[in-house]
């Protein structure tokens, strides 16, 4: 079998795994953090508009990418989706149920179905627990497997699934490398038999060869267990590789959303275009041939975002109305959404 055959097969498998059924829908999500002043009486003097009206859907079995530069609201969006943050307004519909309306008792079930994997696996692993307990405890607490022998068996199975040897069960987090700890984080998430996993910069801290191993692991697991991912990352190359559809955020707003290849081959929003131009590609001849048009300025404060289109102060295509009118997030072609009046 030639490598191209394998590639075609992988590609078909990769693209064929998601359905049209919507698993999660986020509607007009807003998360404003109050900024307070004063020592005894905290007076709210301003708000950080971390997420300012974001809407999207995730279909069962797909990987939706959420990309944008730091501070644009990716993590906050993810945290609101599992109710780690109480949204200011908006709906989080999980198979039709609005999670923002549930009390903590009603949320328990969803806390199993929805898991999150963080960038820094170390800070999320208890240093005094063995890896076996880190993976096994939540199964006990959530009553997923009550029998200790069976639970132990499941831990070993999960370690193997995540490419870790059985003797890791007896080790502690500090005895492991960054890549191994991230595998533990993934095993712990899988222990809950989740349907939906939010990966927040899950591979961003890893070196390229280790990063590629973990990316492959996440893809294998998605296929094997029919998982759905929200894949949050600032790394546009990783996002292109792993996602079916991609949403681009800027300063708390969603500026573009499209199928992965469509977004990269035919970006419409000036910010998406600027982002893609900024990423250097590991190909020296191609880099020589590329025009390096570089977007000016820096990202403004989310405490006092620009009026109108939030990107207008840095935008090459901006016209007078851009500083006044908030552009509507509209579908310009089937499945391709963009928030810019000049498209």
């Amino acid at each position: 079998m030639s490598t191209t055959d394998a590639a075609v097969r992988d590609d078909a498998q990769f693209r064929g795994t998601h359905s049209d059924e919507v698993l999660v829908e986020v509607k007009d999500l807003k998360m404003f953090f109050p900024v307070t002043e004063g020592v005894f009486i905290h007076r709210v003097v301003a708000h950080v508009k971390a997420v300012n009206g974001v809407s999207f859907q995730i279909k069962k079995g797909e990987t939706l990418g959420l990309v944008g530069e730091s501070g644009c609201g990716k993590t906050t969006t993810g945290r609101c989706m599992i109710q780690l943050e109480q949204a200011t307004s908006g709906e989080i519909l999980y198979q039709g149920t609005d999670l923002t309306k549930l009390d903590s008792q009603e949320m328990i079930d969803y806390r199993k179905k929805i898991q999150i994997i963080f960038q820094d696996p170390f800070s999320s692993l208890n240093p005094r627990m063995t890896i076996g307990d880190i993976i096994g405890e939540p199964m006990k607490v959530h009553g997923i497997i009550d029998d200790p022998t069976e639970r132990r068996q499941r831990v070993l199975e999960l370690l193997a699934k995540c490419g870790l040897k059985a003797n890791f069960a007896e080790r502690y987090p500090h005895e492991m490398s960054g890549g191994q700890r991230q595998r533990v984080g993934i095993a712990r998430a899988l222990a809950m038999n989740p349907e939906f996993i939010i990966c927040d910069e899950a591979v961003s801290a890893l070196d390229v060869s280790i990063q590629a191993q973990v990316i492959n692991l996440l893809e294998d697991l998605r296929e094997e267990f029919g998982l759905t991912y929200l894949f949050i990352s600032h790394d546009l190359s990783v996002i292109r590789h792993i996602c079916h559809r991609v949403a681009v955020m800027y300063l708390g707003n969603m500026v573009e959303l499209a199928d992965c290849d469509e977004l990269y081959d035919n970006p419409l929003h000036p910010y998406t275009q600027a982002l893609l131009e900024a990423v250097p590609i590991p190909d020296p001849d191609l880099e020589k041939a590329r025009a390096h048009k570089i977007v000016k300025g820096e990202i403004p404060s989310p405490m006092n975002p620009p009026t109108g289109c939030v990107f207008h102060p840095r935008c090459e295509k901006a016209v007078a109305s851009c500083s006044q009118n908030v552009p509507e997030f509209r579908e310009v072609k089937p499945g391709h959404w963009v928030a810019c009046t000049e498209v």
Partner: protein
Amino acid sequence: MATLLEIENLQTHFFTSAGVVKAVDGVSYTVDEGETVAVVGESGCGKSVTAMSILRLIPWPPGKIVGGSIKFDGQDLLQLTEEEMRNIRGRDIGMIFQEPMTSLNPVLTIGLQLTETLMAHTDITAKKANERAVELLGMVGISEPERRLVQYPHHLSGGMRQRVVIAMALSCDPKLIIADEPTTALDVTIQAQILELMKDLTKRLGVAMIVITHNLGVVARYADRVNVMYAGRIIESGSAQDIYYNPKHPYTLALLKSVPRMDQARQAKLDPVDGQPPDLSQLDAGCSFRARCRFATAKCAQEYPALEKVSDTQYAACWEKDNLEEKAS
């Protein structure tokens, strides 16, 4: 072009309770006047320790340069007194680190820090130093430079601070800049601004630069020549074209197969090497990559392969360097 820097068989070890960490163990490379050379490799492979060795900033204990020579502009830096070395650092060799606050003092104004560097290394009056500081800030793209002089680092964004560091690094007309992960902490649009600025300025002023990075895209865009490091050694070196289009070391090959490409539609799963880099205190006589290498033979366990010429511009340290294509198919 004449050779500006020549590192030969540099060895920097750390003597720790857990054993001797051979962080840099026989590194040799050169930098010509005015060229940009990249050092690329995954974390812990010895990139920063090599840079700190050039600057003679290895903390003892536990670290020590135990062998080799570093010839810069005709003199061996390893033979200089600390006093002589201080004059070279910041004057002939400028430094830019990942975290701008490594180079900036939080309690001093931007202006004071720039003028102090200038006055320490050159015969210049305070007034002239001030004018030069304004000029430098303008050169690195900082608006209203006069106003910035009286500001403190915390008034500036991360990208702006890195611009100030670049201004400081260039202030005394250095011959060489060492930039260790200069944009790793920055967002991608700011990274592009800073890298483009560094490229323009070094080309315009004819300053040579060593760019240390783990980002293969950055290397492809900015480097004339590339050194790939693994486990304390350079395992391959060549022009950017050599390294990306005709790699001769299995590790370089594996690295290139591990990076997802943003410019191409997904075709297949990534094809990374298994395992992880070795513990630098446990290295044996063989090739340090062999546990992860799909080309390894019995010989690889016995002797470390020297960095040998494969073409006029390219060198690789691998016993199987001439058989890779044949074996890969």
